[in-house]
């Protein structure tokens, strides 16, 4: 996974609160291997009508290729399924902008190069206004300065340093952890002695 620090992307607005990961990808698609691609499952049931046809009025059912999703509060709440992030990433998204995110979703997003960008409610509302005034104007996000802009809108956003570094560098945690193997080994040895009850009796 490559890192990134600056994007200028078309935005799509999904005006729904509490879009949980069951909405992002219904459970019945989760047995599919990642290599087959998850884009078609993104918001599968929400974007279709009762007959299973794509609803032309749904914001994501468009010929444009948005890479920044504007969502509402509590986006990605619920199940820990990382497949919800796979569906967004495979559909071309690099950032989701919302007033709040599920904690597990946020971790999963960062682990896949997707930025969960949190804006205060009032900033979020102003951002949505700017998007709606100029729906084809790309939003710019810079991870080095933590700035988001769209037309006249410009704000700094906060992002914890761990997530920021991971997104910029595209770090793989398993590779990163290798340098700490000796610390892990000595911790392990020490707890074998200090908390014998924590080790299984077989």
């Amino acid at each position: 996974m490559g890192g990134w620090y600056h994007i200028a992307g078309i935005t799509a607005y999904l005006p729904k609160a509490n879009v949980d990961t069951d909405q992002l990808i219904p459970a019945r698609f989760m047995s599919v291997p990642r290599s087959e691609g998850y884009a078609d499952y993104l918001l599968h049931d929400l974007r279709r009508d009762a007959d299973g046809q794509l609803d032309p009025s749904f914001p994501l059912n468009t010929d444009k290729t948005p890479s920044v999703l504007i969502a509402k509060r509590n986006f990605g709440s619920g199940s820990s399924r990382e497949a919800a992030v796979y569906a967004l990433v495979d559909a071309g998204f690099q950032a989701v902008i919302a007033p709040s995110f599920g904690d597990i979703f946020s971790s999963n997003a960062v682990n896949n190069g997707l930025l969960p960008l949190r804006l205060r409610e009032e900033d979020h509302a102003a951002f949505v206004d700017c998007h709606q005034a100029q729906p084809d104007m790309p939003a710019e996000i810079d991870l080095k300065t933590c700035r988001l802009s769209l037309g006249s809108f410009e704000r700094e956003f906060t992002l914890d340093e761990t997530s920021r570094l991971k997104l910029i560098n595209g770090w793989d945690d398993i590779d990163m952890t290798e340098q700490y193997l000796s610390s892990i080994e000595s911790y392990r040895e020490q707890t074998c002695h200090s908390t014998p009850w924590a080790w299984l009796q077989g």
Partner: protein
Amino acid sequence: MTQPLTLLDKLWDAHEILRRDDGASLLWVDRHLVHEGSHHAFAKIGQKQIRVKEPNLTFGVLDHYVPTNRVGIQIDPSIPRMMQTLRDNAAMHGFKLFDMTHQNQGIVHVIGPELGLTLPGLLVNCGDSHTSTHGAFGTLAFGIGATEVAHVLATQTIWQRKPRAMRIKVEGTLGPSVTAKDIALNWISLLGADGARGHALEYAGSTIEALSMEGRMTLCNLSIEGGARFGMIAPDQVTFDYVKNRRYAPKGQKLEEAIETWSDLKSDADAYFDREITLRAEHIAPTVTWGTSPEQAAPVTATIPALESFDASKAEAAKAALEYMGLEAGKPLIGTPVDQIFIGSCTNGRIEDLRAAAEVLQGRRAVIPGLISPGSLKIKAMAEAEGLDEVFKGAGLEWAGAGCSMCVGMNGDLVAAGKRCASSTNRNFRGRQGIGARTHLMSPAMVAAAAVTGIICDVRALLSGKAN
């Protein structure tokens, strides 16, 4: 003087191998539980040709995709495939697997505690958001995604930034038929489904101390529905008594040493919490959800809130939820017709839950169909030894095997479109129990009351004539 510590501080410090400059802690994982849904993580370590680092601390169980009636394997070819993939991974990496017919099989968050794999003072991870359940033992337990599962498999450690500490105190005595489920739905409806986001929750107070381990697990389980990845309760004698004699729990001298250590696992008197609220048990009623988020809940005796009562950020969602649920604002919850019921899940599929449902169902007939799936095969055997299965079957309900079943619908146990289900589960999300399914979350006794009346009703009215 040393600084007073929270339970979170104590658990975190005990597991922190190191903390990087950016603030991320590398934590040691004592128990890693995996299930069929962990297939992405196994594929990831497979690509890197990495083997599971600590197979002896890794346990697998078939729960998410297991057909609860054990004959549904032919329905969807992905179900047996998912089950076989976990078997193959367990065999390849050499960790213990509780297969479909193993006596220890059950929902991962039910069997962990039941087998003594979950102990106070441990760090437990599982690729499932309801891992917060294990926090009921004074355990640092949290759900993780597939990339993190792969990291735990490969290193037996996890990177995590320490969450802020939050405490919910509940004081007083719960009324009849008011349960841990109602405490949870109550606080989530007050604070919102993202109310505890970014925090590790500790539950404390006299009401919590009076809860059984089953009740504590239900409460911690639902932490994630209020946004908290972690839920925890300080261990006490109730905890120690539960742990004693469990299959994988320490015994004899080791147990005594352990209990000595565990007895210190509580927040110090003056410990600082970033956020704290106190609830009165007497103010909590049997609670039911009316919408498509767990925050959309109300006392069963209430009316569905008027749309004007919501602030702007929640009104639109409430309107959409009522439309999906086929309900009207301002109408009473009691009397809402229900099409079917489900009792089970990692939230409310334990023996105490089945007993509470049986108390209502005893000598009565269900007027709508329903499925009861115990949380584990051990619970199934215990319920059958107590004759609870006869009560359920006598009431006309289906008594099935153990698994996640209709809570998540991966195994083919689904609610049909437009049907309304009274459910003892954890999520009333749109489509969670099936496309177009309408879910009302409530306690097992409340579900049983819906079964015998065919409507959402107040279980207290059904039990008032019975000695309880």
